């Protein structure tokens, strides 16, 4: 056990699974970096260094750099998964899904069903998401609601280093295609992470805070934001439960409904664009299944329905903040 960053936690999960299982391979743009170039080997180790050190340990045969050609290599990962490997393919930014989505949603996500249960596709697509990097409209989106919409895909959004390692190992061992979304602003977050391999099951929400007045459901970076708000308001006598569903598909609806039954108040915090996102999905769930438990209207904290802006002033206005979450919690608590 030692303190590890979100980045190190994922790197360790990849390395440990590659040591355990020779069919696990890693591929993506610059996953080692410097392929064919005159300088250093393992020059980048991924654009933000998540796969650094894997190529020196496991070789070019298991850590494959790719051309900038997402259709081909994400599709190749799907085909490799259907024929006996366990590929972890990196789609550098989730925004690039537009050029390879067919391979994910029409191929990987449907093999099992279309082929009458006779296919397994143990694929992991690692991808970076989220605003806060001043990276503007095409490098900052969340887009996980779109993957969540597709039957046959499992969708994972870790919120801390501990969560990231256990969920990544689970993702690699899972026999279904898994979209593993890494919030780029979390990479340097640190916490105690066991040195040993471990798994966190999908579809089991984590309650990062337990309280009696308001339930906050949040994803990814919004989880630490919500924890911060819960800790602040606890001191003022507003006691919050924070639910981190960990996976949007499968979604632990039971835990969300139980928490709402306990508190009677719900705030959903979702960094994804507000139409047809997880906030609307969970609000609909609670409205259908737990309407009688609600003591106040549900509040959603989301960005506006715009692309992610570039100018720092605009991006700061765009992203849901602890202040916006706090205001929503106060509003539903009637305080």
């Amino acid at each position, binding site marked *: 056990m030692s303190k590890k960053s979100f980045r190190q936690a994922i790197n360790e999960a990849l390395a440990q699974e590659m040591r355990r299982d020779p069919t696990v391979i890693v591929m993506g743009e610059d996953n080692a970096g410097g392929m064919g170039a005159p300088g250093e080997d393992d020059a980048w180790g991924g654009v933000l260094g998540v796969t650094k050190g894997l190529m020196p340990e496991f070789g070019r045969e298991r850590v494959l750099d790719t051309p900038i050609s997402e259709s*081909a*290599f994400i*599709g*190749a990962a799907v*085909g490799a998964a*259907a024929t006996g490997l366990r590929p972890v393919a990196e789609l550098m930014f989730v925004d690039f899904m537009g050029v390879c989505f067919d391979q994910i949603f029409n191929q990987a996500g449907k093999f099992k069903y279309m*082929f009458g249960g*006779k296919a397994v596709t143990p694929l992991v697509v690692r991808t970076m998401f989220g605003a806060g990097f001043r990276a503007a409209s095409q490098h900052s989106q969340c887009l996980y609601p779109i993957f969540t919409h597709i039957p046959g895909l499992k969708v994972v959004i870790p919120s801390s280093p501990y969560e990231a390692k256990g969920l990544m190992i689970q993702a690699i061992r899972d026999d279904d295609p898994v979209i593993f979304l890494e919030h780029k602003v979390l990479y340097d977050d640190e916490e105690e992470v066991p040195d040993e391999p471990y798994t966190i099951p999908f579809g089991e929400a984590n309650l990062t805070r337990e309280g009696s007045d308001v339930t906050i459901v949040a994803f990814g970076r919004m989880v630490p934001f919500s924890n911060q708000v819960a800790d602040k308001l606890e001191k003022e006598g507003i006691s919050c439960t924070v639910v981190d569903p960990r996976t949007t598909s499968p979604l632990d609806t039971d835990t969300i409904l139980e928490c709402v039954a306990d508190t009677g108040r719900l705030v959903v915090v979702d960094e994804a664009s507000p139409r047809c996102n997880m906030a609307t999905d969970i609000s609909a769930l609670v409205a259908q299944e737990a309407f009688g438990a609600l003591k106040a209207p549900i509040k959603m904290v989301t960005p506006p329905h715009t692309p992610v802006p570039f100018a720092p002033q605009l991006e700061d206005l765009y992203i849901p903040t602890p202040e916006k979450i706090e205001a929503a919690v106060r509003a539903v608590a009637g305080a």
Partner: protein
Amino acid sequence: MQLSREDLLKAYRDMRTIREFEDRVHDEFAKGGIPGFVHLYAGEEASGVGVCMNLDDRDKIASTHRGHGHCIAKGCDPKGMMKEIYGKRDGLCGGKGGSMHIADLSRGMMGANGIVGGGPPLVCGAALTAKTLKTGGVAVAFVGDGGSNQGTTLESFNLARVWDLPVVFVVEDNGYAESTASAWSVGGSQKKRAEAFGMPGTEVDGHDFFAVYDAARQAVEFARSGDGPSLIHVKLDRHYGHFEGDAMTYRADGEVDRLRQERDALQIFRTKVSEAKLLEIDQLDEIDAEVKELIDQAVAEAETAPPPTEADLLTDVYVSY
């Protein structure tokens, strides 16, 4: 020519099975017994069989919209296929895939594909598996002339080259992408496209089983020996429309009748083997009769087979939920 008598009989039986299968699907579809869309491979038999005769259990293929022929050539069960096309519970895919997604991974058949150009990236992955696990396997991507213009196909040419994958790209050019002529829609030539990506490309007459077989043998050996990808441009004809129900108003008057008479792959095969005294016509006729009986049975069984149940609707979404 390295084909044994047994090989020749098998080649003919597979081609005849495809033809009989497709002709019957055409008839039964017209009668209203088959739901959805079907895209028939009749006329293209020499391509699928000529290529797949060079493959074994280690090898994988990915197919197109027009996938029945590739299935049969790769060893899928025609009765299971027919039930699948009829949407029955005992079909090859439990009635959940249908004609456009027919697959049998246990036979190395990675699926017909409802997405034009969907297959080549998958084949790169299958080839990567073979290369990584050192199985000695080869993977073949069948694409049509329509699929040859998709970015996925062209990206796959590049990826297969830079990763040195044991892939054979087989472009089955039947002259039409849906209703649009390949003469119009394909810029440049398939062969030169391959060469531009640094891999060998050949053109063959897709009506001639032997020409396809020889070209595929070289390409498969090239891939299996570690030399990487290559491309075969197969020129052939389809006997039916893009889909069943296509009135084919875009084709010339008498075009289909003419090609059925003059460029029929099965007829060409019969003539060649009998003239070369490799096989007797009687033997081939015997196969024709056996195949007809098989397909009669396949249709009869498919018609009476039970459909999937409501419970089947919800299974097979995930391995475990």
